[in-house]
C-alpha cells in the first residue's frame, strides 16, 4: 500500500509542474498576472523579487512549490485576498453539492441498475435501459435548464438559483439544493447504472450462485447475500471514480444555478486572468482527485481480499 502512495508522488509532482507552467506559457509578463493589472511598477518589482521571476525557471518553481507546501497559495491578483481563504470560503458550497449529487447518483443508479439485471429483457429492463441511455446522453447543463424551466418558471416550486448553507437554515438550503443535486445525480447515474446492471448480470452467472440456488436457498437470499454483495464490489471503485465526473459536473452546474462554489471561483479566475487563483484551484482539484483514486484502490483491497495492488 505504501508503494501505491509513493507511486502517486511523481504524478503529483509532474501535475504541479504543469500547473506552475500555466503562468509562464500564457502570453504576457507573469508579474502582471500575479500582482494584478493595475499594479504600479514598484509593486510588480516587489512581486518579481519575492517570486524570483528574474531567476531561472526551475528556481522559480521551487520557490512556488515551497510556498504552496507551507500553505501559502499566494494572493488573488484581482482582490488581493489570500487564495487559500478564497478556496476555503467556496469549498463548503462545492462539497454540499457534490456530496448531495453523489448520494442521488448512487440511489438512482441502484434503482435503475439492479431490477434490469434480475429480469433481463423484461419490460422493466427496457424502460430502465432507456433511462440509462438518456441520462448518459443528456447534457448536464441542459438538464439543469429544463429543471429550471419546469420547476421554477412554470410550476414556481423551487428557486431557480442561489445557495443557502445547510447549517444556516436546513429547510431553505434543501430547496436550493434539490435541483442542482438531482441534475448532477441523474447525469452521473447514466454510466453507473449500466455498470451496476452488467456487474449484477455477470455475477448471477457465476458457479457459486448456482451452488447457492441448488442447495435450496430462497431466491431473495441468493440475490441479497450472494449476488449483490459480490456484484457491488467493483461498483465501489467506479462509484469513487465518479468523484472526478462529479467535480467536473459541479463546475457546470454551479454556473447553471449560480452556485457559489470552487468551479465558479475557477471560472472567475480564468475570466479575470487571475492566475494565482486558477493555479491554486486546479492544484487543489488534482489533489482531491488523486486522493480519491487512492482511497478507491484501498477500498477495493479491503472489500475484496483476492485483490492485491501489486499483482495486477
Amino acid at each position: 500500500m505504501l508503494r501505491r502512495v509513493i507511486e502517486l508522488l511523481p504524478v503529483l509532482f509532474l501535475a504541479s509542474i504543469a500547473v506552475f507552467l500555466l503562468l509562464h506559457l500564457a502570453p504576457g509578463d507573469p508579474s502582471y498576472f500575479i500582482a494584478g493589472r493595475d499594479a504600479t511598477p514598484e509593486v510588480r518589482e516587489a512581486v518579481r523579487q519575492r517570486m524570483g521571476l528574474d531567476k531561472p525557471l526551475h528556481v522559480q518553481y521551487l520557490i512556488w512549490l515551497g510556498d504552496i507546501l507551507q500553505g501559502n497559495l499566494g494572493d488573488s491578483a484581482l482582490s488581493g485576498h489570500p487564495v487559500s481563504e478564497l478556496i476555503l470560503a467556496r469549498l463548503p458550497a462545492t462539497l454540499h453539492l457534490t456530496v448531495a449529487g453523489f448520494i442521488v447518483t448512487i440511489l438512482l443508479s441502484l434503482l435503475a441498475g439492479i431490477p434490469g439485471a434480475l429480469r433481463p429483457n423484461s419490460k422493466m429492463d427496457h424502460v430502465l435501459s432507456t433511462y440509462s441511455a438518456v441520462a448518459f446522453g443528456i447534457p448536464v447543463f441542459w438538464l439543469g435548464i429544463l429543471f429550471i424551466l419546469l420547476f421554477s418558471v412554470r410550476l414556481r416550486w423551487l428557486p431557480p438559483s442561489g445557495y443557502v448553507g445547510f447549517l444556516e437554515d436546513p429547510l431553505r438550503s434543501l430547496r436550493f439544493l434539490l435541483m442542482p443535486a438531482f441534475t448532477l445525480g441523474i447525469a452521473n447515474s447514466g454510466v453507473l447504472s449500466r455498470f451496476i446492471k452488467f456487474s449484477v448480470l455477470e455475477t448471477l452467472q457465476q458457479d457459486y450462485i448456482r451452488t447457492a440456488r441448488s442447495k435450496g436457498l430462497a431466491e431473495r437470499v441468493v440475490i441479497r447475500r450472494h449476488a449483490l454483495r459480490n456484484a457491488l464490489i467493483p461498483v465501489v471503485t467506479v462509484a469513487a471514480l465518479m468523484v472526478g465526473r462529479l467535480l467536473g459536473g459541479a463546475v457546470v452546474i454551479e454556473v447553471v444555478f449560480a452556485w457559489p462554489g470552487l468551479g465558479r471561483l475557477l471560472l472567475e479566475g480564468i475570466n479575470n486572468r487571475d492566475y494565482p487563483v486558477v493555479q491554486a484551484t486546479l492544484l487543489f482539484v488534482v489533489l482531491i482527485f488523486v486522493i480519491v483514486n487512492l482511497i478507491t484502490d484501498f477500498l477495493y483491497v479491503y472489500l475484496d481480499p483476492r485483490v492485491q495492488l501489486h499483482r495486477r
Partner: protein
Amino acid sequence: MDNDNVGRSSRAFLKRLLRIRSGRFGLLLVLVLVLLSLLAPLVVPFPPLEMNRGDEFAPPSARYIFGTDQFGRDIFSRVLYGGRISLLVGFGSIGVAALIGVGSGLLAGYLLGMVDTAVMRLWDVLLAFPNIFLGIAVVAVLGPGSLVSALAIAIMNMPHFSRIARAAVIAEKQKEYVEASRAIGASSGRIVIMSILPNTIPPLLAQIATAIPRAILLEASLSFLGLGTQPPRPSWGNMLEDSREFLRRAPWYGLFPGLALFLLVLGLIFLSNAIRDLLDPTRQNIE
C-alpha cells in the same frame, strides 16, 4: 487488404449494423443531424447572425420555427450552424487524438524502456486532471475559442488511444507471425504498421465511437462555460449559456439548442453501442 476488400467488408459491417435496432436508430438520428448541419447554408431561412429588428423574443411560429433570441436572430438557423461547430470539434479533436495517441502508443509499446516510461507518465499526469479541468487549464494558457477547446479535447483523449495501441503492440509482439516477419527481414516500422496496427483496429474503432459523443458534450460544456466557441458565432453550448438570462421570457431559447445537442449525442451513443457489440464477439448476443 486491397481497396476492393475493404469496400466489401465495410459494406458487410454496415449491413450488420443496420440489423441491430439501436444501430438503425442511432444512424438515422446522426445522419439527419449531420446532413442538416452540413447543408445549413442551403436549408436555413435566415443567416445565423442576422438580427431581425422588432422580432426580438418571437415565440416559435411558421416564420421562426424555433423562435428568436434577444436580438431577433432566428434560433433554428443558429442551431443548424451551431451543429457544424459541434461536429467539427467532436470529430476533428478525436481524429487528432487518435492519430497522436496511436502513434505514441505504438512507439512506446514497441520500443519500451525510457520512451515507454516517458510517454506513459505524461498520460498519467493528464489523467490526473478530471476532464473539464484539463480543458480549463488549456484555455487558461491559450485563451478561449473553438480551436483551443478542440485542442484541449484532443489532448485529454490521447492517453486512452495511446494505452490501447500500446497494449495491443505488447500483446501482438510476442506472437508467431511477428516473429516470422522479423525472420524474413521486415523492418521494425513495417512490422508495426503492416502486422500489428491492423490488429488494433477493432478496439480503436470502439474507442473512437465512444469518444466522439463525449467530445461533443465536452465542447458544448466548454462553450457553455464561456471557454469554447465565442459569440456571436453560434454553438449549442454558448446559445444555452445565453438563454439562461431569458428563461422566463423566452423558454424556447433554452429548449431547442439543448434538444439538438441531446439528440445528436443520443444518436452517437446508440451507434457506438451497436458498433461495440459488433466488434466484440463476446457481446454479440446482447441484442
